[in-house]
């Protein structure tokens, strides 16, 4: 089975301080000063992919893993890590355009790439990533390809005859389906939240394979690249104030304070629990 796992590298936004949230031209925010990381949902997706391969190989079926990311050369370090973890192919589609709020463009690129290489039967992606927070890419990849999509997937296991057993969260329970590829799997809050770490020896032995670098222009037409968010344009951006106010509830007696707390703040909220 051929699996393509797509991932995105994002800035660790928790490291930004309040004064760093400055909106620049074109609603850009400079986050280049903070560390990068694999988008957490995508990190789960990559680990789940590796776990699947381990299990499938134990059952004697061959699995070929590819990893795909879209962005600049800086991301190659992550792709090398994936080689060290025994991904068979690591691909980067070079891009310098601002595609933060363009899941339509991103999903088109992925779908076109898949159509060209004709390979993967299974595409695994994290459900959302924390810059655009669009939460649409996996769904739209499925739409572009006309494949079914299982969202909120949390576990993928091999089943007989090239089938997959996929567990996914529904709003009121857990769905366990055995499905026939091709399919798109969108990873939700999976119990595996960390990607395993390759040893230095594996980095030396496997991490030096060449990364396949492709040009985004070959997968998306120029008109779309110039206007990637056609249909939903960003027109405003401002920081959200998360600071707690520490409002002291006044009253002359404990009873008064409790009354004040209950009637002004608690009563309505309790109803909603």
């Amino acid at each position, binding site marked *: 089975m051929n699996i393509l796992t797509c991932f995105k590298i994002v*800035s660790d936004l928790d*490291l*930004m*301080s309040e004064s*760093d949230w400055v909106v620049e031209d074109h609603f850009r925010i400079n986050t*280049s*000063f*903070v*560390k*990068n990381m694999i988008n957490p949902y995508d990190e789960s997706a990559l680990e789940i992919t590796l776990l699947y391969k381990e299990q499938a190989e134990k059952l004697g079926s061959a699995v070929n893993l590819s990893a795909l990311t879209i962005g600049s050369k*800086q991301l190659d*370090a992550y792709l090398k890590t994936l080689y060290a973890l025994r991904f068979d192919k690591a691909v980067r589609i070079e891009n310098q355009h601002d595609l933060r709020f363009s899941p339509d463009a991103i999903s088109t690129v992925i779908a076109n790439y898949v159509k060209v290489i004709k390979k993967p039967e299974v595409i695994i992606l994290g459900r959302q990533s924390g810059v655009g927070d669009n939460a649409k890419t996996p769904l739209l990849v499925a739409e572009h390809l006309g494949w079914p999509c299982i969202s909120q997937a949390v576990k993928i296991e091999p089943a007989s005859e090239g089938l997959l057993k996929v567990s996914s969260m529904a709003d009121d329970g857990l769905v366990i389906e055995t499905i026939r590829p091709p399919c798109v799997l969108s990873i939700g809050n999976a119990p*595996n*939240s*960390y*990607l*395993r*770490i*390759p*040893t*230095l*020896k594996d980095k030396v032995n496997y991490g030096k394979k060449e990364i396949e670098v492709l040009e985004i222009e070959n997968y998306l037409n120029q008109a779309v690249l110039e206007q990637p968010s056609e249909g939903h344009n960003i027109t405003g951006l401002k920081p959200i104030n998360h600071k707690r106010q520490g409002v002291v509830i006044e009253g002359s007696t404990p009873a008064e304070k409790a009354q004040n707390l209950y009637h002004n703040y608690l009563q309505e909220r309790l109803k909603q629990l």
Partner: protein
Amino acid sequence: MSTTSKTQIVETLISILGKERVITDEEVLKESSVDRFRRFEEIHGYFTQPLPVAVVYLRNKNEVAAVLKFANEHNINLVARTGDSATEGGLETAVENSIVADGSEMNKIIKIDPYNMQATCECGTSLQDLEDELREQGYTTGHSPQSKPLAQMGGLVATRSIGQFSTLYGGIEDMVVGLEAVFPTGEITKIKDVPRRAAGPDIRHVIIGNEGALCYITEVTVKIFKYRPENNYLLGYTLNNMKTGFEILREVMAEGYKPSIARLYDVEDGASHFSHFAEDKCVLILMAEGPKPLADATGKAMEKIVAKYVECEKVDPRLIQVWFDNLNWDVSKVAEERTEIMETKNISNTTEISATWDRIYDIYKTCVERIRNEMPDMTLVGGHSSHSYLNGTNMYFVYNYNVVDCNPKQEITKYHLPIKKIIVEETIKAGGSMCHHHGVGKHRTRWIQEEYGSSYYILETLKKAFDPKGIMNKGTIFPGE
């Protein structure tokens, strides 16, 4: 050791402290039998050390004296504890029927005295609380170890801790003005707060760094400094070689400059902090602080020194500022670490040593190479220098590994200790010190005599004099029998 039964120990402790403050709950005892050194075992639910007989919460020096006296009279091992953030096994209860004597409830800031530039607090005062309180008044302790959100003053003094601004403010030993400590006989001793004295040896150093193996620290007075972060002059560079980095650090120190931060990361260690701007590069960070004219002059002079080294490329100070703002343990990350270890079976440990300028690079190079070649399953081997002195600097080795093909209980013997052994032996062989700022704990005691050489006589005599029965934190600093 003690012939007193568990029941008798507990009953006596209750008679001294009352039932509420003598804890014998098994879960609490388990948690209290280890520190971060054994966190891999602990996260996997294994507790391999003898459980203490009780954890007691002490509220004042008289209670400390009464409990120590009782333990001493009945040969009961006693482990002193405050913030519980130790990393070297210093808080492990190595022998049966130990008492864990917790001072975290002695947490009053007794006096902040801006006129005399000093602050006095009880041993259980968290450094973070003291620092927050001081900063509100425009002052700082100048002490900023990574453990700041968790560590408390008693433990920080007992382990000879050091902070990120040590190159300017010094280690805790340079900050402590006076102390109060209780000895095993129940003797309460107070060393007064004076600027300096030449009235015999400086006895503060019997207490600072004793790791609970000689006495119990109950109160500390430290210096305070004006807090002027607006004057911070921050510099960051990328470079190719650690050797060049050490040369620059040496030159800055030898020329007589006093940066508050002087840090040099190698490629591997740096990758976990700086990969977004320094891929495959070493990173050098310098900061000057203090009164503006002084900070500016120091900053500019250091810039000039670094400019002479062509391989150094200056980076946007904002990159360094973000790193700096996130330097301390973010407590939520400490919590996440548990999940990460559990899921990945990958753990990160550290060993910190020091040596003179002429030896530090060789120690660094040899250790890193040996660990890479000799140890299995390594995922990161590297380190940084973070505290520089006129005659040398430290090296903080960082080593991560995947724990595979063994029981969680074997993590220490299969990986952690063999790695520590390489670092400690190479360092001592080269004439450096095997402990720079985490303390000896319980796992470096086997080399303590080599560390001291002929001067071990002085150290050993302290133990004989102040804890002749050996009831204070058995196995810490001094090897057990």
